[in-house]
């Protein structure tokens, strides 16, 4: 059999998208998007529903014709290539296993379409099932499998064709929380075991952060930021990314003064904080500041707080216990702005009561300030 040619040089990306656009009536779903995905990497497209990520994925698969731009897979232009001839396979949102066939027949379906002889394709299907940990399940009906096993069949069915690219359309969306956590780990292990390039779309930021080598955060048909999960989390490029990726406290206000890399932000309630400047901000401009829950430190008195950081105070309104992810919700004393601050895992604040007054501070370098979004929905 002729495997889809994978260039020996690592220089050619497995997927290259250049100024790709798609418009539905008046709605611009994908807006002049360009990016490339390196061979063997796990790439996620993260965005809220309606951001255009499904349209983008379906254009790569070939189910939707783009209005403009190019898609190259494994260095080959895909403009005139039908979906059933692309070196790309897709794992559908609800998996789309064929209920009229056995598990082995599902996996062998693509091989049969390529004209592989019956004995050979059953052998390869069985070998593939073994690699995904489903040895001996070939004779079962698809509805006899658990949710996780069904997902592995869907992936095996695609990978048996040795595609250059595997597209995954929110396959974990329909699973319950516990299974989803489990399948996240399994997906990452499968990807590193096979070394196939995965392009994964999701609206769940934690899935994208855990699984990916690189993430494109998509909004209104464009990438707000493209980077590693760490870059997205610690150095968001836009206020949308800061808001969407990970938990964050958002403060809207005005820039009171700008000194070097720090901005003094005044909220409408009269609270003043300092944060690192991102982008051009002039004094008096509308801004948005973000403080991660774990960036703030708690103290019962101002003396307990790190020296040199401005001290703030607030009233506890709620305690959300969640093991290592426990947080306290408080109202800043002056402005009543609601904040979410991580509780230290030492148990030092286990006696904290609703209504208690508490101090907190944060390093202004770890808070980030953006110019306010022009049209904030």
């Amino acid at each position, binding site marked *: 059999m002729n495997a889809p040619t994978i260039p020996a040089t690592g220089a050619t990306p497995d997927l290259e998208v250049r100024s790709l656009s798609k418009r539905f009536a008046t709605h611009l779903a994908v807006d002049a998007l360009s990016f490339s995905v390196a061979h063997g990497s796990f790439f996620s497209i993260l965005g809220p529903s309606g951001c255009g990520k499904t349209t983008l994925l379906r254009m790569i*698969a070939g*189910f939707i014709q783009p209005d403009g731009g190019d898609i190259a897979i494994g260095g080959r232009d895909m403009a005139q290539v039908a*979906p*059933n*001839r692309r070196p*790309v*396979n*897709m794992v*559908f*949102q*609800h998996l*789309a296993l*064929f*209920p*009229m*066939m056995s598990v082995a027949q599902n996996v062998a*379906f*693509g091989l049969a*379409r*390529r004209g592989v002889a019956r004995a050979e394709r059953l052998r390869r299907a069985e070998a593939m099932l073994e690699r995904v940990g489903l040895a001996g399940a070939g004779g079962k009906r698809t509805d006899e499998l658990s949710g996780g096993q069904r997902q592995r069949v869907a992936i095996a*069915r*695609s990978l048996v*064709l040795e595609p250059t690219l595997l597209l995954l359309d929110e396959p974990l969306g329909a699973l319950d929380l516990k299974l989803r956590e489990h399948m996240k780990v399994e997906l990452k292990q499968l990807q590193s075991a096979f070394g196939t390039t995965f392009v994964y779309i999701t609206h769940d930021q934690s899935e994208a952060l855990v699984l990916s080598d690189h993430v494109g955060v998509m909004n209104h048909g464009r990438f707000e930021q493209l980077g590693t999960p760490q870059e997205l989390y610690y150095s968001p490029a836009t206020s949308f990314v800061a808001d969407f990726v990970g938990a964050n406290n958002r403060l809207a206000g005005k820039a009171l003064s700008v000194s070097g890399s720090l901005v003094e932000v005044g909220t409408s309630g009269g609270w003043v904080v300092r944060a690192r400047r991102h982008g051009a901000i002039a004094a008096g401009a509308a801004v948005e500041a973000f403080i991660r829950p774990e960036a703030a430190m708690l103290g019962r008195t101002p003396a307990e707080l790190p020296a040199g950081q401005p001290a703030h105070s607030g009233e506890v309104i709620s305690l959300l216990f969640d093991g290592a992810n426990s947080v306290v919700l408080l109202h800043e004393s002056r402005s009543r702005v609601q904040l979410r601050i991580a509780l230290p895992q030492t148990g030092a604040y286990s006696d904290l009561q609703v209504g208690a007054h508490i101090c907190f501070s944060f390093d202004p370098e770890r808070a980030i300030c953006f110019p306010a979004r022009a049209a904030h929905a």
Partner: protein
Amino acid sequence: MPESAVTAVWYRRLVLALLLAPALLWLFALIILPHLDLALLSFRQRVAPRQYVLSLAQYRTFFGEPLYWHVFVRTALLSALATALTLLVAFPIAWIIAKLARGRMSALLFVVCLIPFWVSETVRTLGWMILLRESGVLPALLVHLGITHQPVELLYHDATILVGLVYTSLLFMVVPLVGSLESLDNALIEAAYDLGGKGWSILREIVIPHAAPGITAGCIVVFMLTLGNYLTPTLLGGKSSQWFTEQIYTQFITRFNWEQGAAFGFLLLALSTAMVWLGLKISGQRFSDVMRRA
């Protein structure tokens, strides 16, 4: 307390019996009873005026007279052919209604399939005669277009009977097909296409296996309707139609031989039962699944 519980159980049973009564009465009085009477009728022979004996003579006559079983086999084969043709015509229509048309368009197409049934079957069939007879619209059109030199008689051919039967049966095939195609997830078709499938292989591997209960249901209904149809073969086929229902009609009405007619009726019932059984066996479907679709 146990006594009131017992009363409640009896009360529930009484309500259930009363609710079922009309259906059971209908089943018994109008279906089982006449058939029992016909069965008795078919197993007797008149030996003298008002004198009857139990015998298999009526069935022996059927097998002894080539004309009868010739017509019988011909009716079965033409009915099977009409069913197959109806399936071929109905499948694309059902596909368009279930998968391609959206909202109002899909409802409109359904109505188009239903419209012929607003007219009585007799009038509809007479309409076909007006179109097809030698002095009718279609032969005149053929002459006008220069395809034939003189008007040809398009009535009284087997093909004409088939056209009429397909036309009459179409809706009964389209309805179960639309039902089973609508429940086919489009993602399955996309997945098959994504895995390298082409039109024909997707139809064979995905669409037909999924729609099998609907296809079988439609085929059973259409085959039964066609086999038992009297009007369409008689009017469109004329003297040469040789449909088995005509034989039954002749025995009962023209020759007043109720015993022979009853035997013929039971043979037709046996034929239709056998064909349905065969159809289910070949398609590997269960009767209960199929009937839920019909």
